[in-house]
């Protein structure tokens, strides 16, 4: 027979004024197994807690029900006190007779409130009789982190975690870290040069004792759960021995073959053995294998001949390695919508119609023109440039429904950069709305208009075509309600930011959620903006949606601080509300496996001593299980149950209704 104690709280007058707490206690005393009851003024006060503990000890109780306020208020308090008094915290339950009863049934005769409190408490007592003692789950935490993506968000996260004294593995798919930010010329609204603020951070990451960088690498598989991930990384063959390479550049200087430069957005060529840009980190070239005649047809091989330290290896193969980490930051970034979609703007047809990112390269001192604004077709300085905003953004019919957030600002910046370099040049901007929310952003746009004379036209462009060596841009100016036709030398498209083509694949590898645009979902858009639904995996930067540099940096730091908090203890305590499968009744239908929102259930093979498979069964991973109980209701064999909310407990409550 259980020995249950029932403590009915008066909550001053909050409960007592509409519930006869003494009567509730007396009624409960009649239930089998209830050996102690009382009514008390303030159960949560410290004399109340002392009384509670004393009553447990003196009456040798093995379970308690506190009939009081919502468990969301004081469940923790009473469970802690129970534990101190020597009973398992999960043998303490709360009946909510304040929020659910006394406060919402202001009947002064106390009849209604008392009757309902009796019911509510009885249901909880019956449930408690079926409670089993549960133990908090302690998960060991491996205090190393993985950062996927070496753009500014990933670099920031890696640096902050490393500064916090923890090891970080930074995985980048390109030959160098730096991401999209490395391509930018100046940055709004301060106009500081992008590389000047980024490259010191890249170098810092490279030299940091706690950071290991794998470039030209991709994460292929992630197993495990918070505190205990196992990650498989593919290091693609660079055909250059990283250890030996001094970065002298003799190889790419001598390489006779060229290919379009990804970094220069196709505005320039690079060699087949190359570093993407001069400040690349690491400063180790890679061979673009599909375009290398030595690798493809065994012809050439010049680079190997000129390399002093002999680090070229045409036979090199991809390497697979496994790293164990406790937390992951996903910072895989964005790409631009293919401009080819916008035939009406002449992209791909007219050489001098370029993208905003290409303009960044033209304006960049380290770019293909050395920072001179020259149009791609003939290298002439354009006397007038038309900038078209919202190319694909906010346009569900042709592009995406959302706003790409940074284009208004960088277009204003482009007009300024252009004017600073071509003093008599005229910039025109076609826009839908100007969105310049952000510190000093609105002033920045005004400066472009008022100081640098950019001509802003509110309206859409309908057609772009060539006539007598000029680009004719036809559009509407809705503010003057007229059609406009501008003769331009160059057109720059502010194309939409979209998720990376590989976004969905990466999300599946990691088990995180993404939206219909392929951007990763945060756990909660306001309260948990850098967490994902998968515990231990965090987000930073544009992989979760368009954002500017400051925001990306903030998210990187925020993720890092979450991870450092996680790494501050050796073990992580988890509520033991997890599902368990009964091996005897599981018939391996995998209904639970498909139902579980956290992919917390594995298919497990049961083998005999000879190693033959006898059967299969479902197995819950307590590290991943969040305790929703979806699997329990999904299982038709009733083979899964949820600790803390077992069928037995729920039925006991229903039967006491």
């Amino acid at each position: 027979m259980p020995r249950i104690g029932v403590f009915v709280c008066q909550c001053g007058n909050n409960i007592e004024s509409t519930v006869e707490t003494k009567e509730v206690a007396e009624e409960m005393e009649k239930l089998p197994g209830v050996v102690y009851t009382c009514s008390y003024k303030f159960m949560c006060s410290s004399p109340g807690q002392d009384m509670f503990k004393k009553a447990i000890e003196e009456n040798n109780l093995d379970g308690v029900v506190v009939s009081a306020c919502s468990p969301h208020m004081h469940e923790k308090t009473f469970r802690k006190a129970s534990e101190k008094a020597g009973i398992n915290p999960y043998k303490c339950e709360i009946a909510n007779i304040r929020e659910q009863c006394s406060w919402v049934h202001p009947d002064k005769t106390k009849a209604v409130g008392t009757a309902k409190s009796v019911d509510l408490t009885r249901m909880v007592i019956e449930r408690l009789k079926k409670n089993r003692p549960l133990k908090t789950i302690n998960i060991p935490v491996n205090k190393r982190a993985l950062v996927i993506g070496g753009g500014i968000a990933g670099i920031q996260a890696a640096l902050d975690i490393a500064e916090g004294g923890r090891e970080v593995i930074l995985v980048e798919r390109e030959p160098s870290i730096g991401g999209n930010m490395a391509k930018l010329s100046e940055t709004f609204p301060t106009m500081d040069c992008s590389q000047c603020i980024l490259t010191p951070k890249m170098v810092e990451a490279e030299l940091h004792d706690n950071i290991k960088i794998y470039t030209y690498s991709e994460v292929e598989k992630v197993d495990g759960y918070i505190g205990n991930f196992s990650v498989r990384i593919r290091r693609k063959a660079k055909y250059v021995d990283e250890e030996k390479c001094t970065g002298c550049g003799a190889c790419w200087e001598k390489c006779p073959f060229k290919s379009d430069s990804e970094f220069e957005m196709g505005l320039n060529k690079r060699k087949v053995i190359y570093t993407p840009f001069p400040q690349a980190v690491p400063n180790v070239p890679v061979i673009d294998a599909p375009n290398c005649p030595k690798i493809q047809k065994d012809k050439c091989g010049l680079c190997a001949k000129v390399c002093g330290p002999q680090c070229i290896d045409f036979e090199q193969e991809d390497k697979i390695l496994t790293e164990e980490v406790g937390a992951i930051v996903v910072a895989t970034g964005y790409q631009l919508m293919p401009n080819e979609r916008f035939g009406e703007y002449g992209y791909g047809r007219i050489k001098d119609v370029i993208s905003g990112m290409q303009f960044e390269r033209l304006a960049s001192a380290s770019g293909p023109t050395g920072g001179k604004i020259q149009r791609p077709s003939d290298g002439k300085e354009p006397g007038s440039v038309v900038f078209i905003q919202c190319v694909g953004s906010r346009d569900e019919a042709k592009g995406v429904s959302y706003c790409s957030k940074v284009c208004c600002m960088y277009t204003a910046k482009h007009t300024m950069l252009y004017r600073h370099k071509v003093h008599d040049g005229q910039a025109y901007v076609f826009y839908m709305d100007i969105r310049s929310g952000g510190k000093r952003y609105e002033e920045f746009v005004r400066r472009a208009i008022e100081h640098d004379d950019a001509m802003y036209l509110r309206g859409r462009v309908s057609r772009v075509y060539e006539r007598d060596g000029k680009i004719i841009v036809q559009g509407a100016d809705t503010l003057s309600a007229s059609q406009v036709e501008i003769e331009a030398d160059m057109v720059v498209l502010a194309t939409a930011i979209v998720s990376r083509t590989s976004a969905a694949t990466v999300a599946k590898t990691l088990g995180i959620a993404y939206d219909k645009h392929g951007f990763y979902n945060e756990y909660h858009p306001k309260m948990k903006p850098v967490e994902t639904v998968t515990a231990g995996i965090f987000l930073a930067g544009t992989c979760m949606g368009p954002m500017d540099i400051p925001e990306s940096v903030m998210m990187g730091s925020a993720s890092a601080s979450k991870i450092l908090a996680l790494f501050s203890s050796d073990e992580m305590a988890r509520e033991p509300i997890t599902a368990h499968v009964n091996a005897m009744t599981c018939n391996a239908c995998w209904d639970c496996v498909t139902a579980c929102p956290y992919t917390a259930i594995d298919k497990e093979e049961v083998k005999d001593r000879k190693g033959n498979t006898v059967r299969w069964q479902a197995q819950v991973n307590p590290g991943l299980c969040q305790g929703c109980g979806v699997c329990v209701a999904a299982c038709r064999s009733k083979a899964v149950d949820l600790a803390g909310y077992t069928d037995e407990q729920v039925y006991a409550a229903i039967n006491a209704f």
Partner: protein
Amino acid sequence: MAEEKETIPTTDWEPRIMAFVCNWCTYAGADLAGTSRMEYKPNVRIVKLPCTGRIDPLFIIKAFENGADAVLVSGCHPGDCHYTTGNYHARRRWIGFRGLMEFVGIDTRRLHFSWVSASEAIKWVDLINKVTDEVKELGPFMEYRNLKRGAEEAKP
């Protein structure tokens, strides 16, 4: 046998309603109704579950068996589930179950499904009042109780 059946108590009969709610949205919404001192009909008894996805349709049958005149299931709004998709499972299961109840002849006005978020105290209050009034009009769930009694009597 018919004359032995319970008759509808005409005087102060009050419906008994059982509510299965999730911990994160509806339970918190009901708490908010309390902290805001809103007033509603006292006929509901809540059973808290982590998620509506935990609800086994048998819970509902068990509730009727124990004398519930109506059963209410409520959780987070679609898309807001604390466990991301648990409430979708609940919804799918519910639709199937409701169809089955209809098929066996149970008045589905005794079955309610709703989304009440942690901030929708008013919605919770309105819901309980509405369901209570509706069930009051329907009267006690004699069909089910008779069915149960019939089954008991049929036992050898």
